[in-house]
């Protein structure tokens, strides 16, 4: 009785739908491109049953790395948004709110404009400054009076984001002739050398996702308010700090790989909550991972093929896919 049949059925349906969408997007991502490769051939290539040749090379060396990257980043951003919205009890929370997006944008801009010779350091710059921005936010929000409070975190985040935003603008003004190179990063795009990036950054995804898993139950307690969470043996400020670290790690690593895709972290958790009809984190966090991965992978398929052979930034395409779905659900949900 405690969990009615319809509730379980609805949640399962959303999980299955997200999984199907993800598989479809992954299939399309591997099969569709400048050269269309039949799905059966793709599967043969994945399982090592395809002889060496151009098709095998396209699937394994070009499309598979980008697809894996899209899945990892999409899942990371979906989870980062879900964890932050839960921890801050605020529907507008996303990695933007804790300064990560502005910090990563500044880090990338700094490398691209001031050190164009060291462009290989771009992901590192984005990661480091994303984490630095979040660390500054936490340091401000977790000291002084009312430390660890929701308003404290959000206001500190907005202020620090403004600071890094101003620094980014300053850099662009200082190097106006090189600004072109920043546009792709700001719009978000999957990199061609994804294996190398993933090799360096996979631990951040693993740590962030594992932390999110541990946070599921504490976040459910926190949803009932700080006092109830405390009654249930949790420390609300500690949960918020853990959630902030989790989101900062995931979103910074995501920004390092694909640039700024903040929309995903904001919208995906709302999508799954509206579709699943529950805010329970045991559903919202895994469902956000699946839906985020599906949305980014599908967006990438569009970005690569709409104006082929030119690869467009994935950010706008993901928005084009996600916004209509989001608005449709928004109107249906009471």
């Amino acid at each position, binding site marked *: 009785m405690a969990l*009615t049949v319809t509730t379980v059925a609805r949640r399962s349906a959303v999980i299955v739908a997200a999984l199907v969408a993800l598989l479809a997007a992954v299939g399309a991502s591997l099969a569709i491109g400048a050269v269309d490769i039949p799905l059966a051939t793709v599967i043969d290539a994945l399982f090592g049953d395809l002889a060496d040749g151009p098709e095998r090379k396209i699937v394994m060396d070009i499309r598979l790395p980008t697809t894996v990257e899209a899945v990892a980043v999409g899942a990371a951003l979906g989870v980062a948004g879900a964890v932050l919205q839960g921890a801050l009890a605020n529907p507008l929370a996303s990695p933007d709110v804790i300064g990560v997006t502005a910090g990563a944008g500044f880090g990338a801009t700094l490398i691209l404009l001031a050190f164009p010779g060291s462009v290989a350091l771009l992901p590192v710059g984005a990661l480091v400054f994303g984490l630095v921005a979040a660390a500054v936010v936490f340091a401000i929000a977790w000291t002084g009076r009312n430390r660890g409070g929701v308003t404290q975190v959000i206001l500190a985040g907005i202020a620090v984001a403004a600071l890094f935003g101003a620094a980014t603008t300053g850099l662009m003004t200082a190097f106006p002739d090189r600004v072109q190179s920043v546009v792709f990063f700001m719009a978000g795009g999957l990199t061609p050398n994804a294996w190398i990036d993933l090799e360096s950054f996979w631990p951040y995804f693993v740590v962030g996702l594992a932390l999110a898993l*541990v946070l599921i139950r504490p976040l459910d307690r926190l*949803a009932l*308010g700080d*006092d109830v969470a405390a009654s249930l*043996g949790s420390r609300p400020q500690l949960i918020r700090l853990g959630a902030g670290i989790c989101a900062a790690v995931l979103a910074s690593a995501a920004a390092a790989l694909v640039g700024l895709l903040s929309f995903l972290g904001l919208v995906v958790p709302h999508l799954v909550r509206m579709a699943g009809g*529950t*805010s329970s984190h045991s559903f919202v966090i895994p469902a956000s991972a699946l839906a985020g991965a599906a949305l980014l992978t599908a967006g990438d398929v569009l970005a690569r093929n709409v104006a082929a052979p030119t690869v467009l930034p994935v950010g706008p395409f993901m928005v084009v896919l996600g916004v209509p779905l989001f608005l449709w659900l928004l109107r249906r949900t009471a």
Partner: protein
Amino acid sequence: MTVASGHEPALDARDVYVRLGGAPILHGASLRVDRGQLVALVGPNGAGKSTFARAAAGILRPARGEVRCMGHDVRRTRGRRLARLRAFVPQRPRVPEGITVAEAVRIGRSPHLRPLARATRRDRDAVERALERTGTARFAHRRLTTLSGGELQRVQIAIALAQEAPLLLADEPTSQLDLGATVSVARLLRNLAEEGLAVLLVVHDLALAAALADEVVVMSDGRTVASGEPREVLAPDRLREVWKVEARLDADEAGHTALRVDWLGAARELEGELR
């Protein structure tokens, strides 16, 4: 660490001092609650009742003094262990969107689960019992955002009962409720005490406190100033001294209580005229 024995009070708070934001809020507050006893904590606004209840629950850290729940020092007992010793029902709980009554009460059971572990049959039974006991089972599938104030308060108590702690602290659970809902929550708390739970109830309504409580503890200006049997403690002299009103508590053996208040100051004027 002391191990709880059968004779120890469920809650024993001694000479508690609390500072909030640098300001002293409590200076010398003490009380004890035994198993099967309902103790009402009363006092004027700003006397420190809620702060004392939160310190007694281990949610606020006292600057001085000692609080023991079931024999355990709350400052040394953290997390899920403390949550299995006492449950706290806050005054203004958050009402999250997209959470049903059943989900909320299941969250109340979470101190009994190891991290990442799934609920067992025992946990599910405890949740079921908490829902039944509070009369919330019949709307267990509804979302918290659709409930009335009285229903919400019963859900809060259900969340606390799912913790299966021997001590329940409730901070003004009836302050926002109409008469009928107040009576229903009051009876529930009284019955829980009859069944062996130790209950500390922070309450404004002195007539309600007198009807419900085995013992009343009066707070004034950050201190506990009196405790004992309700009719003795809430005598006219004390009501005048602590609340600055002329009032008399009427109570009969059947459990009816009323507070006769000189609302408009007529008695004092009359007194003046007679003089």
